[in-house]
């Protein structure tokens, strides 16, 4: 197994090396790096040209320039590498550091969301094959597939950002919109739940009622400008997740799993009060990351101790419950600072930039600011790749559902839930791992456009500017990050594959 992964890694690195030569060659030959200066009317034109030739080593053949670049890269092994300079002599490594963080934040978040949503949607549409929901989702997915990113981005900016910003300044109840949303949600949910006509009607009406009432309550309690959760809501969320996860994973009949979930909720409430002070003051990213790790550990521990003979399921339920509660607690603290954000930034979702420049504020306000700026690009990128994941999951689930062992599982008397989650789902994930790696590379391409549309100074910008200027160093830096990411994703896919499929674990 290890040998297999190492061999794959080795061949990936070799491919990466080859691709870097190809890309370098192509970029160098894609145009004239001096074209802007040649047309320049400046007095010191010749001097400028000479400087640039010196910076970019234009007097040497391309392979020598590549070798110099490679040498700089190799220097990192000795602790003193360089990614070269751009045409004005700036160190590319410095430019990259800033650019990479915002781009990776965007791409990783979008990938994770896309996988979760896409796989879930894929499973539901596979289970409800040929239902109205299936057709509607299929149509939406084809729409997303066919959507030009930049065009959709303009629409998002207009209707989500600007519309919301106008509205939040002075929230008013728009009954038509709320009822419309409620009806769409109700229709979707009843289609997903299926069942008898009466059950469908109940699901639909209940959903509409909850949404409309919820919207009204949010408005009445001034939740839009001044949102808050409080311990009671936290408890309700925790209980709902614990019970729901248990019902999904093992069924409520399994008492020990349910018990593990409920104990996790209790511990979550303890955590809620214990961390309130730390989180309310001015925390930092490390504290939150540490708390997240503790949350997962607590979940695992509770599941192990209380799970009895179904430890695995208990751990799953506990960890999911713990994570959702943790997220809810973080959300509560974010909400506490929402009015503060509105004070410094009256139009919370601005359409340009990855963060508001020169914003001096508390941790939570800055966090919220980055979050709101991340919102639109993430939605856009997620929509694009959700299409792929849900489509693949759907067809993979349908393929698996035709296998003999599914029939065996049914013949044992297992319920639908167990057949789908235990027998079908895991098998259907196997082919999906392989598209993960591909999709990630594609997403980075999408990110280039997204960054341009939303005016982020990310890697896409680095690449586009570099290419326009026929300047290989920034382009190669971009490729280095995307290529490494692709290789890493491949590695993750390989490992996941081995985890999921015992047949290749040798």
């Amino acid at each position, binding site marked *: 197994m290890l040998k297999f992964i190492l061999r794959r890694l080795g061949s990936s690195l070799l491919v990466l090396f080859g691709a870097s030569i190809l890309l370098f060659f192509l970029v160098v030959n894609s145009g004239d790096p001096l074209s802007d200066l040649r047309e320049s009317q400046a007095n010191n034109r010749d001097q400028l040209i000479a400087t640039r030739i010196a910076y970019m080593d234009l007097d040497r053949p391309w392979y020598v320039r590549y070798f110099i670049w490679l040498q700089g890269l190799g220097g990192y092994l000795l602790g003193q590498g360089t990614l070269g300079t751009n045409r004005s002599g700036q160190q590319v490594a410095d430019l990259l550091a800033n650019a990479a963080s915002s781009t990776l934040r965007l791409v990783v978040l979008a990938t994770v969301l896309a996988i979760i949503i896409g796989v879930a949607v894929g499973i539901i549409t596979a289970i409800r094959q040929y239902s109205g929901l299936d057709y509607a989702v299929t149509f939406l997915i084809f729409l997303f597939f066919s959507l030009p990113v930049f065009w959709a981005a303009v629409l998002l900016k207009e209707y989500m950002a600007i519309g919301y910003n106008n509205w939040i300044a002075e929230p008013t109840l728009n009954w038509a919109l709320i009822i419309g949303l409620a009806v769409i949600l109700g229709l979707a949910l009843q289609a997903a739940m299926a069942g008898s006509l009466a059950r469908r009607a109940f699901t639909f009406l209940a959903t509409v009622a909850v949404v409309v009432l919820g919207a009204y309550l949010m408005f009445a309690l001034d939740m839009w400008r001044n949102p808050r959760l409080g311990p009671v809501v936290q408890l309700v969320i925790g209980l709902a997740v614990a019970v729901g996860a248990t019902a999904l994973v093992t069924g409520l009949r399994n008492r020990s799993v349910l018990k593990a979930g409920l104990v996790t909720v209790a511990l979550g409430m303890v955590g809620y009060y214990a961390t309130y002070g730390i989180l309310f003051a001015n925390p930092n990213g490390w504290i939150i990351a540490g708390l997240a790790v503790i949350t997962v550990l607590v979940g695992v521990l509770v599941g192990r101790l209380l799970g009895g*003979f179904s430890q695995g399921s208990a751990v799953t339920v506990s960890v999911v419950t713990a994570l959702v509660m943790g997220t809810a607690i973080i959300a509560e603290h974010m909400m506490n600072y929402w009015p503060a954000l509105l004070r410094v930034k009256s139009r919370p979702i601005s359409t340009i930039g990855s963060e508001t420049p020169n914003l001096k504020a508390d941790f939570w306000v800055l966090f919220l600011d980055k979050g709101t700026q991340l919102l639109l690009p993430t939605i856009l990128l997620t929509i694009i790749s959700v299409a792929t994941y849900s489509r693949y999951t759907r067809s993979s689930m349908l393929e698996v559902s035709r296998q003999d062992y599914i*029939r065996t599982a049914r013949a044992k008397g297992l319920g639908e839930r167990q057949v789908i989650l235990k027998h079908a789902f895991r098998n259907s994930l196997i082919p999906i791992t392989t598209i993960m790696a591909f999709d990630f590379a594609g997403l980075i391409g999408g990110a280039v456009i997204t960054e341009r549309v939303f005016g982020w100074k990310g890697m896409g910008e680095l690449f586009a500017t570099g290419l326009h200027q026929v300047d290989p160093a920034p382009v190669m830096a971009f490729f280095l990050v995307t290529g490494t990411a692709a290789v890493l994703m491949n590695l993750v896919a390989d490992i996941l594959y081995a985890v999921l499929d015992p047949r290749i674990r040798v």
Partner: protein
Amino acid sequence: MNAKAFDGKDRDMVENNAGSHAASTPAAEQGGLVPGPVTAPHPVTGPATSAIGVVQRHDDLGGEPILSFRDVDVRFATEFGSVHAVKGVTFDVKPGEVVALVGESGSGKSVTSSTAMGLLPPTADITGSVKLAGREVLTMTPGQLRGIRGDDVAMVFQEPMTALNPVLTVGDQLTEALQVHGIAYGTEADKRAVELLTMVGIPDAASRLKQYPHQFSGGQRQRIVIAMAISCSPKVIIADEPTTALDVTVQAEILELLRSLKNKMNTGILLITHNMGVVADMADRVCVMLHGEMVETGPVHQVLQHPQHPYTQKLLAAVPRLGATYEVAEPEPVTATQSQAVYAIEAEDLSIEYDHRGKKNRVVHDVSFSVAPGEILGLVGESGSGKSTIAKAVLGLLPVAAGSLRIQGEDLATMPTKEQRRLRRKIGVVFQDPAASLDPRFPIGDIITEPMVVHGVGDRRSRLARAEELVDAVRLPRSVVNRYPHELSGGQRQRISIARALTLDPEVLIADEPTSALDVSVQAAVLEMFAELQSRYSFACLFVSHDLAVVDMLAHKVLVLKDGRQVEQGPTENVLHDPQAEYTRRLLAAAPVPDPDLQAERRQERRELLASLGEAAY
């Protein structure tokens, strides 16, 4: 705590199922695992069922059936209208009884049995009545159906390679049913799983519980499937072609296992099969189905020895039997004195390897044989014996690793490409899978004449004439040349395959299991035609088969292979009627014959043979 959970659950089951799962004292007389001759179900007094180890023995119900079908009628809605798959079938299965549902493809036998578990798709329109232990199955809610599946009625499937979930451990899959039906949980369930595996003859069960299905052989997987089926002590087991995918020796073991479990648990078995030998071996009563109707039913002796319906007679007559022969061409003897005559195929110390990513895997070791012109050599063995590999090597599809292989005195592997093409004109081939051996995009005429096109023989008109001539020879209508493979049945496709092989009048024909994917009566027709063509064209033939009876009927000589090595070879009548090698004897002993008395004798002989070798029967 676990034990408590089990007890509690079991008591619930008692209440629910009116005593079917009462936890009573083990019945000592049934505790052993030694298979005995079929014992008459003895009357049980006291509790309705009794536990034997982890399974339970069921009551006789005083001769009442445990599973009864009354006028079961199934239609499927398809895009082309309704299809009448089962047309009013009525029969019973009693506790401890094996009822065989016999029929060829499309007879509706699997559909009939699936109604007992509610496993048909929603497009099925089912009428009539299926009663399981007195409860109507057809009107059950999904929840009730789940309750009986696995618990009251369990299923053993045809394909052990795909019936188990590849990503879950065997233990996980075994304990699942126990937990779902509330029989045992956790470590208690694991303990039961170990016992179940031991019971079905998997050694070292405790450590193998953590293994995955791919780590078991086909026969072992079928044992695991059987262990899963008996885990909740079902009242009825539906075995859907349980041994069709297995080798004949493994088949014999699995049948012995099923028989001994049935005797122990007194379950009814509904055995679905197309193999009359299996019927003779296992069944108490037989129901013969044809196109969704039951054409004959009765005790096994009556149906197999005195069949009334012409279809049953036909079916029985079509079963290949040892000792019967077809008329085939007499081979031309090849002797040292004939200087110009050469063997059609001659192999000396032939070894063949598969190259798997640089790793050489030798699958055929030092095999020698020769086929004279006009002679048929039967290549016999079980899966993995290397018989198909040899056929592939003769066709030049695999390289020879060591030794020599000559076709008409020439070495195909070492010849230049052009010469190879010339030699290949003289070789015809028929493969096993009728679905895969014809290109689905070619019309039949093009398929038959492809060898002529490849070798540039004839023009359009003469090719068409040849195609029609060959279509006549395989007794198909001439209009078939304009049809496509998917419009033909498996048997018809196999005949087209034979016609294609004969297009260029080959001197050597390689037939790799040409009839093993066909229904028995279709197989008979194809074999008969094959024999006739061979005596007309007198080609030399390498006939690969796993079926000893088929080889006995066709071949002049037989070569028995095991694990890539030759076991025994010689004239058919010597090898198959007076076998010297122990393995050949085993093979012969394991093949069931379609006569219940004869088969009972053979079963006893096999037990004695295995006992003399110090082995158990299953």
